[in-house]
């Protein structure tokens, strides 16, 4: 079967790529666009390692076909930093040792970003719910909660007074 031309919006850039039509978004991101930050784990929707944001909503790229998302904006872990400046979650994850082997980290960061986009003062319960679809076999999750807490605090500090949620 011939490759098909796809146009995707990834991390703020419009990309046109020739890809096999039966390849998932995960495969296209990693193999055709060279964005290997998104990890392939179980590839069956059970582990969350391949989580990306589509229009800000966490979804699994291993079960998404690029042809179905049309013009939606895809955010991968490569799109979190602004130039040399890391996202507060990335800094906090590094400082709190919230990554050990690091394989779940890109997906975890994106699920956490979606949470902090909605609230900058999440409870531990809200954090647990937000990352319920991201398996981590190393950390025991405690360091991850602490890193999300720290990032949320830094985001709150940067917000103008009155804008806090």
């Amino acid at each position, binding site marked *: *079967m011939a490759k098909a031309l796809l146009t995707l919006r990834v991390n703020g850039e419009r990309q046109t790529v020739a890809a*096999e*039509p*039966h*390849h*998932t978004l995960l*495969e296209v991101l990693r193999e055709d666009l060279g964005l290997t930050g998104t990890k*392939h784990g179980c*590839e*069956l*929707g*059970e582990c*969350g390692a391949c*989580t990306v944001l589509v229009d800000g*909503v*966490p*979804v*699994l790229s*291993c*079960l*998404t*076909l690029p*042809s*179905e998302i049309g013009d939606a904006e895809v955010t991968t872990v490569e799109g979190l930093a602004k130039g040399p400046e890391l996202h507060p979650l990335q800094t906090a994850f590094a400082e709190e040792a919230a990554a050990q082997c690091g394989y779940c980290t890109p997906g975890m960061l994106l*699920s956490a970003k979606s949470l902090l986009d909605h609230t900058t003062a999440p409870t531990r319960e809200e954090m647990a*719910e*937000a990352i*319920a*679809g991201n398996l981590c076999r190393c950390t025991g999750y405690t360091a991850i909660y602490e890193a999300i807490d720290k990032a949320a605090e830094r985001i709150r500090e940067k917000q103008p007074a009155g804008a806090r949620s």
Partner: protein
Amino acid sequence: MLRLPRFRMEVPRTLDEAARVLRELGAGQQDPGTTGMPGMKVLMVAGGTDVYPNMKRRQLTPEVLVSLRRALARDVRADGPSAGVTIGAGATLSSVSAHPVVRSRYAALAMAAGLVSTPQLRNMGTIGGNVCLDTRCNWYDESQFWRTAEGFCMKTHPNVVCRVATSSPRCLAVASADTVPALLALGATVRIQSAQGERSVDLGELYREDGIRYLTIARDEIVSAVELPPAEGWRSTYLKLRDRGSFDFPIVGLAAAVRMDGERVAGARVALTAVASRPILVDAAAAALRGSRLDDAAIEAAAEAAFKAARPMDNTSGTIAQRKRTVSVFATRALRELRERRAEAA
């Protein structure tokens, strides 16, 4: 890499177009009981959270996928405080569980939709997809490698025995949708569209006690919407047993709804999932509750009826005894909870 098999994708823009495409492709003539699930050449897909994993494991190997993503409505429409609601089949499970009208008037549905798998899968999976969810079994939901080594089963190869009970004349795979018992308890109907036109059926009539031919509708009929009657006076809840607190399919799911008239139960429904090849509306449990004061004796009788109706097999997690017992424990807990709670619509 666990890749999808090659297929062609059709993405119709409207329901009429989808129905026409399905008829032209001959989807309605397919019979998984004759060909096995991998023999189904034309399949519909909405969120893809169940179809794509099954394709990766080669339980499904369609030549054409008809994506309903553009054609299906995805809104929750409530026409007024005393009217029912219509949920487009393309509504994601996240949007259903978060919808204020669903949360306030149809609690069991909000709870069930919110307990399906993980946040990511709820952001992708749809209510229509959950209603049409493929049945599951320890012998079916395995990799191609595992099934090649261990031996295939009736659901993929109709000339092979059922591995769960080798003398069973039918497939024993388990109905595993969370939202279905909630919808049954709330009295849902589904709207079905095909090239022949549109019709509505009671949700309970959509299912059959057969793990392969688990839906009664033809394979070119599209579940386009779920309709719920007015919820005035009803209160409802859903309880789910699964291996882990997130991720997993139910190994028991129970929904209960009651409507009180003063001190007495005027209407009741108790529905089960994951304990048979079809979801079960337990009429005997409802009969035990109607006219009662929702007292302990009536609740015990309803729980006993639900226990009797559950027929779990040894083909998912947990043991048969544990899952059957859980049904009666859940029935008791759910009905006591409803006794305590104020009528939601009040």
